Structure formats: structure tokens, C-alpha cells
């Protein structure tokens, strides 16, 4: 233990180790904060998509892109009837409400979408509404009339008739300076969507929320399901780290133990372990996992178990065997037998500790390979169906042709995080290798 502590003290002399340690510990702190700030069930709920995200734009870029642009991309604006001056008059057969949803639009770029969300309260007869759009230069664009269900959504951007009238997509045409449909330009000023509602019951009520979706969202952007990629990027960290660490620990420990047991007992046990290893070494792991993912289960825990099981009888056994064979004959082990140490004690306390320091660098470098393996599986569509992971983001991006549509952020961000993780562990591993294997120091 003391020698181990000394080895870690030596690490400070290697810049790559310091950098690697900084990256790894930074990621670790971030992971811990993530898990505390967004508890697991909450993360799953968010990542399932749907309602929590309906006010978010789809395919929005991360906010940081504005730092690199001359014309800033707009953020999302939400105008609610609760903040508006609602006029209401009682009629013989009910009520008439006028809800002016006004907002200032000064951004240089058009929004990505406009939706109106309605919340109506009534007994039997649905309210009837009339929508009109008022521009800063005094034009009025009728958006038609309709009835409102209890929770309703008016997709203004999807109104093909309106698009035909405007000659532009509604969310552009409604905000554009008139007369230049080929090169639309935003007309800055105060816009208003006036909702005139006829309520046929005295107790009936209506709430309306206008959402002018921006083109940027959060620090990470959103995907095709309007989900905030930030959630998955943050939660991908703990998942990747836990997966990599558990797989590395699981395979290393079991491999080490089985290798040591084979060396210690020798004879047919050793021969059996060697033969199983040789067969297992030529089995391709990835196709097996694809098969299991396709036919059995995509749960990350099943995958973890499969990786560990396939990893037990790996090439590592050959390496450990080569290292342990001379140790088996060491006089101190003979002495231990003479004072009565049992087989298990000799394997665990006398053989394995002898080679443990040499294995630590390899172990550290093994972690990112499992992180990448999990990501590869996810990219192939075999990721855990419920967990938000980096690999799943990449898979979604791939299936939505993100790069073709110019959503580079969708691919770049998880890839960068994956590379950062790999880089951190690799740099740490290389430095550890030099500390524990002094012969490499002069290279």
C-alpha cells in the first residue's frame, strides 16, 4: 500500500498524468453533480420525451453557437394568457373573451416554429375561437376559426393554406417584411396574436399560450423529439463511467483470479482454462453482443454481464499466467504452504498481490475501451432503450441524418465527451505504466 502511495506521488512528475487525472476527476465531479441534480427516475422520465419538451424547439442548436455568429439566432418566446390583458364580456348564451397575446420580436433570424397551446374548461360545448395575427406595420392576417378541445394545440406552422397565402412558411411569413418573399427579412416590432373566443357556458374558461420557438436551446441543443440533449450528455457520463469501470473491474478481477487459480492448481484445471481461453479468444465478441441485443435483451446490465463473461477467458489470462508461473515457484509461497496457508489464501494473498501493481496501468487503460464498446453498441442501435447515453445520442443523430441536415452539434458533442473520457484515462494509464514499469521511463 505504501509503495502504491509512493507510485501515485510519482505521478505528479508526469504532465500527461496530471492532465489525465484532471480530466478524469473533472468528469467524475460532473457525474456526481449530475446524479444528484437530475435523479435517475427524473432523467429517465425526461429522456422518454413527450410532454415535458413540447415548449422546446426541435433541432435547436446549442446556445453557444451565437458566440460565433454575426446575427444571433432567436431563443424561444412564450406568451401566456395569464400575463395578457384579457377582455371578457357576458353574453346571453355565455361569454366572449378577447385574449391579446403580444410580444416584441427584434431578432435578426426567424423562429423555427409557432404553436398555440389551449387549455379550455367547459361542460359539454366546446368554445369557438377566431385567431388573427397583427403585425407591427398594421397588417392583419386572419388565421381562421376553430373549436378548442380541453387541451388543444394549434400548429400554426403546419397550416398549409396559410403558407400558400403568405408564400412562405407561416413562422417566417408572419414575421417577414412584406414584399420580398424571395429574400425574407424579419420586420422588427410588436406582434400580436389575438384570440377571440366564444364560450357557451357561464362557467367555461380558456387559457392560451403562444410559443414562438427559437433556433437555439440550452447549452446543448435539442433533438428531433425536442428533448434537451443536455440531459443525455450529462447522464451519459455516469452511465459510461459506471459501465466502463464495472466492466473493467469485473473482467480484470475474474480473469486474474481464474488465471491465478489455473497456475496454482496446474494440471487439468490449468489445461482446461487454457483451452477455453483459446477458443474464447477467437470468438468475435461484437457479433455475439449484437445477437444478444437483437434476440434477447438490450438492457445495459445484460450487456455488461455479457461483456464480463466474454472477457473472463480473454488474452489477459495468457498474460497473467506468464507472469504468475514463476511466482508460483517462489520460495515464499512454499514457506506459506509450510505454515499452513490454504489454496485460496495463497492465490489471493500471495500470488495476485505480487502482480497487481503491474496491472494497474492496463486496468486504467481498459476502462475507456469498455466505454467505447458501450457507445458502439448504442450507435448500432443496441443501446439500453431507456437510459440516456452518449452512444444513443449518436444513434439518434445517425438515424435522423443529423450531419446531412447540418445538425453537427448533435454528433460533435457526444463524440467530444467520449473522446475526452478516453483521452483522460489513456493519459493517466500511460503515465501509470511508466511509474509501475520503470523500464519504459527512458523511452
Amino acid at each position, binding site marked *: 500500500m505504501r509503495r502504491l502511495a509512493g507510485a501515485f506521488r510519482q505521478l505528479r512528475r508526469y504532465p500527461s498524468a496530471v492532465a489525465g487525472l484532471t480530466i478524469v476527476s473533472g468528469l467524475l465531479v460532473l457525474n456526481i453533480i449530475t446524479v444528484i441534480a437530475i435523479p435517475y427516475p427524473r432523467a429517465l422520465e425526461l429522456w422518454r420525451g413527450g410532454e415535458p419538451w413540447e415548449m422546446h424547439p426541435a433541432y435547436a442548436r446549442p446556445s453557444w453557437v451565437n458566440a460565433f455568429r454575426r446575427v444571433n439566432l432567436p431563443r424561444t418566446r412564450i406568451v401566456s394568457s395569464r400575463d395578457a390583458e384579457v377582455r371578457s364580456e357576458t353574453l346571453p348564451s355565455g361569454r366572449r373573451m378577447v385574449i391579446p397575446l403580444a410580444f416584441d420580436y427584434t431578432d435578426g433570424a426567424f423562429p423555427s416554429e409557432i404553436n398555440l397551446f389551449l387549455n379550455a374548461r367547459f361542460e359539454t360545448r366546446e368554445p369557438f375561437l377566431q385567431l388573427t395575427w397583427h403585425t407591427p406595420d398594421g397588417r392583419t392576417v386572419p388565421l381562421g376559426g376553430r373549436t378548442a378541445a380541453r387541451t388543444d394545440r394549434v400548429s400554426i406552422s403546419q397550416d398549409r393554406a396559410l403558407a400558400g397565402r403568405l408564400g412562405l412558411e407561416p413562422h417566417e411569413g408572419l414575421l417577414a417584411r412584406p414584399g420580398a418573399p424571395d429574400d425574407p427579412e424579419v420586420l422588427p416590432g410588436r406582434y400580436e396574436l389575438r384570440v377571440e373566443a366564444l364560450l357557451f357556458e357561464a362557467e367555461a374558461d380558456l387559457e392560451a399560450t403562444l410559443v414562438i420557438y427559437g433556433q437555439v436551446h440550452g447549452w446543448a441543443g435539442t433533438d428531433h423529439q425536442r428533448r434537451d440533449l443536455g440531459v443525455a450528455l450529462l447522464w451519459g457520463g455516469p452511465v459510461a463511467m459506471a459501465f466502463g469501470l464495472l466492466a473493467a473491474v469485473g473482467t480484470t478481477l475474474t480473469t486474474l483470479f481464474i488465471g491465478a487459480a489455473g497456475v496454482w492448481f496446474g494440471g487439468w484445471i490449468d489445461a482446461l482454462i487454457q483451452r477455453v481461453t483459446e477458443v474464447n479468444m477467437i470468438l468475435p465478441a461484437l457479433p455475439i453482443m449484437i445477437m444478444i441485443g437483437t434476440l434477447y435483451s438490450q438492457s445495459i446490465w445484460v450487456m455488461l454481464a455479457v461483456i464480463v463473461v466474454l472477457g473472463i477467458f480473454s488474452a489477459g489470462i495468457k498474460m497473467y499466467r506468464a507472469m504468475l508461473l514463476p511466482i508460483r515457484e517462489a520460495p515464499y509461497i*512454499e514457506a506459506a504452504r509450510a505454515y499452513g496457508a490454504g489454496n485460496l489464501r495463497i492465490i489471493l494473498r500471495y500470488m495476485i498481490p505480487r502482480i497487481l501493481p503491474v496491472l494497474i496501468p492496463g486496468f486504467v487503460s481498459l476502462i475507456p475501451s469498455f466505454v467505447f464498446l458501450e457507445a458502439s453498441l448504442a450507435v448500432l442501435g443496441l443501446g439500453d432503450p431507456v437510459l440516456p447515453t452518449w452512444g444513443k445520442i449518436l444513434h439518434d443523430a445517425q438515424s435522423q441524418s443529423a450531419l446531412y441536415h447540418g445538425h453537427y452539434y448533435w454528433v460533435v458533442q457526444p463524440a467530444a465527451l467520449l473522446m475526452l473520457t478516453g483521452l483522460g484515462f489513456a493519459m493517466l494509464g500511460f503515465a501509470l505504466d511508466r511509474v509501475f514499469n520503470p523500464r519504459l521511463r527512458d523511452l
Partner: protein
Amino acid sequence: MPPTPSESLLQARDLHTWFELRRWGFLRVGEVRAVDGVDFELGRGEAVAFVGESGCGKSSLARTLLGLHVPTRGEVTFDGRHVESLDREGRRWFRKQVGFVQQDPYGALPPFMTVRRLLAEPLIINGVRSRAEREERIRAALEEVRLTPPDEVLDKFPHMLSGGQQQRVVIARALILKPSMVIADEPVSMLDASVRVEILALLRRIQEARGLTVVYITHDLSTVRYFASRIFVMYAGKIVEKAPVDALLAAPQHPYTQALLAAIPDPDPENATREKAIPGGEPPSLVHPPPGCRFHPRCPHAMAGLCEVRIPDEFEPRPGHRAACWLHGRTEDDRGGWPRPSADSGPEAGAI
């Protein structure tokens, strides 16, 4: 003096330890006869030395006595109990009764354990649960081997100690379970000459103080005198001569022993140019040992027709002094009809 049966602690009867040679892991192609028919008896509190050249099977004998090798034939009896047929509990008892000191002190200590830890190991394995008791026994053991004050070495790793200190730790570990017998396999051959005597004197002192039975295995006859009361000379897996130290050194009875003694370097400069009569040849193969007496190909007194045919019986040419050599057959019947060799060619003429 040979012990009376009541004092006897350890007996080996017709002990054979053969190692199978296999090809491709399963085809038996022969065996190495490391220990090939050994009989002896050790008394309680007795120190004996096994002497022989490299590869004569003395280390294999030590490991067989320790129960680390299972004898192919024959049996070891310790304190009246057969070592091989001990149950789990008996085995534990036996492990506590026998300590082991190895040749290479650095190799004998686990390099990743501190002295405290490696001395605690035998105690933990043998059920000393109390930490305080362990600490106390560890300190007592270190003091017994004169590693004082114990605090100076307790937290050190083996590589931080000198060779002599390492061997003292090995001895402390062998003694920590309060054994009644210690087997020391070449305990000083890897140490500096300056430390050898110290370690041997220490072993001797502990042996006397505790009344320990000590089996001292060495190839170096010159160190035996410090230590043992009896010598067993081994050659090619067999004991060829058993005698009290003084008797053996004064008048070796077996031709091999005579050759061994003649090979001891003589510090007297007057003898520097004198030729020594040392038999030529090489130690015999243990896979295909010579028939009859194992020493006959190198023996200057070999009797054709007898020595290469019949394995010699053990004779007792003097009281308490036994040798497995046909030269000592008292009668012609003993020697299978061969006449007694003439006095001047007899083994006693070769005594130094």
C-alpha cells in the same frame, strides 16, 4: 548418540519421493528418484545435518518431511502420528509443529508484505485472532532472533533489510508458531561468509534454549561442526552414512564421505601443492540411477560383481556409526560371498 525410541520425535521409514516425468502432459516417460529409500530417526531436541552435493535429493527430503511433497512410498511418523494420514485438524497441528527455514532469505519473504504483516500471516492462518496477542508474539519472535528493537524492522519491507536481517526474519517466522522441529534447508549458503557464523550460532542458541529438533541441510561440511550432533550423508537419493559429527569427521567410513571430506579446502599453505585423491566422475542421474551401489561408478574401492549388482545394506562398523557400503560387511555372507578387502585398500585407510 542415537536416541532411544521413547525420545524419538520423527521417523522416516523406507521413504521414497519420485517425481514423474511426463510427455505432453500425460505420457509417463520415467521418474526422478529424488529420495529413494531413506530410513532414519530423530530424537527430540536433537540437531542433525544432512550433507550431500547438489542434486542428491536432500532438499526433496526436506520438503517430504515438511509434507510439501507426498512420498511415493514409505512414511514419515511425527510424534507418533503418520503425517500422511493426518486429518484436517492433524495437518494443522503438524504445520504448527514444524518450522521451515529456506535457502534464499529474500525469496522466502513475500516482497509486498511488511515484516509485521508477514510474521502475522502464520498466526492468522493458525487461528490467533487477537491483534494484541499477535503483536506481542511478533515482537517476542523478533527479539528471539536478535532483531532489536523490533520497531526498527516491523514496518519495513524485506528489500529494505540486509541479507542477515532477512534470514533472521525467516527464522523468526519459522519459530513464531512455537514448533518442536525446524527444518533448515541450506540456511546460510546464500549469505555473506561474515554473517554465516552469526546465523548458525543464533540457530544453535535457539535450538538449545527451546530444546528444538533441527534438521540442518547443507552441502558444506565445514559449517556442520557449529551445529549438529549427528550427520547423515546423502548420495543420489539415499543416506550412505549416519554418524555423530566427531566420529564422522575423524573417521569417515563410506568412500563417498571420504571424498567429500577430502574436498574441503585446506587453509594450510604447506598443503597447497599436494594433490588430493578425489574420485572423478559426475553425480549420477536420478532418472536412471546406477544399479547396485549408487556410488560404484566413482568409487575407488568398488568390488566388481558385487557393488554394481546389489544395493548395499547398512552396516554398523563402529557403535553408532553406520554406513551403507559393502566394505563394512562383517562376514562374507553379508557381502554375498565376497572376501573382505585388504586393510590398506579399506576405507579406514582413507581417513583424514
